[in-house]
């Protein structure tokens, strides 16, 4: 099933790579955000099915953004996309409402698997 996806990452290169892969596998990128304010604006306007969310961003960290997303929309799926390797941090993010984790760097196959799992969660 094609998903409407919002890509949130402060790296323009990673946003471009994610958007490229998402388009290749038939999903629709409805917006790209770099911080909390932009994310909430696009979330309200585009009502995505899923958000890919970076953890280390310039203005706010991913946990702060995740909590704000959850307050604004209890249903949207959130997939964490990060280079962080600490399980304790992912446990916090999953407890706060993330539905999965994808480690950077990722392949198309890894992204597809993570999206399928997140969509089914």
């Amino acid at each position: 099933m094609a998903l409407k996806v919002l890509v949130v990452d402060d790296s323009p290169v990673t946003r471009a790579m994610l958007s490229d892969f998402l388009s290749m596998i038939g999903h629709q990128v409805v917006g790209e955000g770099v911080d909390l304010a932009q994310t909430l604006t696009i979330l309200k306007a585009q009502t995505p099915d899923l958000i890919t969310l970076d953890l280390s961003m310039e203005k706010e960290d991913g946990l702060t953004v995740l909590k704000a997303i959850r307050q604004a929309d209890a249903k949207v799926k959130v997939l964490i996309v990060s280079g962080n390797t600490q399980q304790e941090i992912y446990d916090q993010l999953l407890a706060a409402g993330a539905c999965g984790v994808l480690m950077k760097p990722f392949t198309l196959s890894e992204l597809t698997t993570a999206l399928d799992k997140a969509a089914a969660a």
Partner: protein
Amino acid sequence: MNREALRALVAEGGAKAAEKLGEATGEKWVIESVALSVEDDAVFEPLLAGIAKDHYGSHFSIPGAGIVVMFPGKSGYLVSTAFTRDHQDQVESMDKRELKSLAEIANIFLNPLIGHLAAAWRRTVILSAPKMEVASQRDLVTAALARFQDKEKLAASLLIKLSSPNLFSQCAVAIFLDSSLADLAG
């Protein structure tokens, strides 16, 4: 501070980071050396001779530490091109493409090292977003050291050198720790 324990801890984390850099660039990276200085920055003396403003630097911080990842100009180009190899059409017209790619590569590369240190320190750590700069090695190291001039006392400095023979590229990582972190090793 147990110097050998700290150096070994950073070397183990560096090996994990090298593996991740290999995943990101599609080529194997090896650690050339891991050097440690205590209470000064002597380990960086060879770098301080480098005055050509041709290095890509990514500055990161965590509480108690400053880190800078440095790629020489030619390596920076080769590494960023390798990282974006499957997405050339999407990134080729991007302004400051190398700088932006290397910021993300440095973030991906450093996280396994920081994760390894964080596990030993029994704490969780989220790296700051990278601050990018093109400058000489001397200026990059000096900028990373600046935070230790006033408020914080430098307890240990580490320099990791890596290379990728197939990618004809080099990378250096400078890590500066205050005593709150340096004393946690061993």
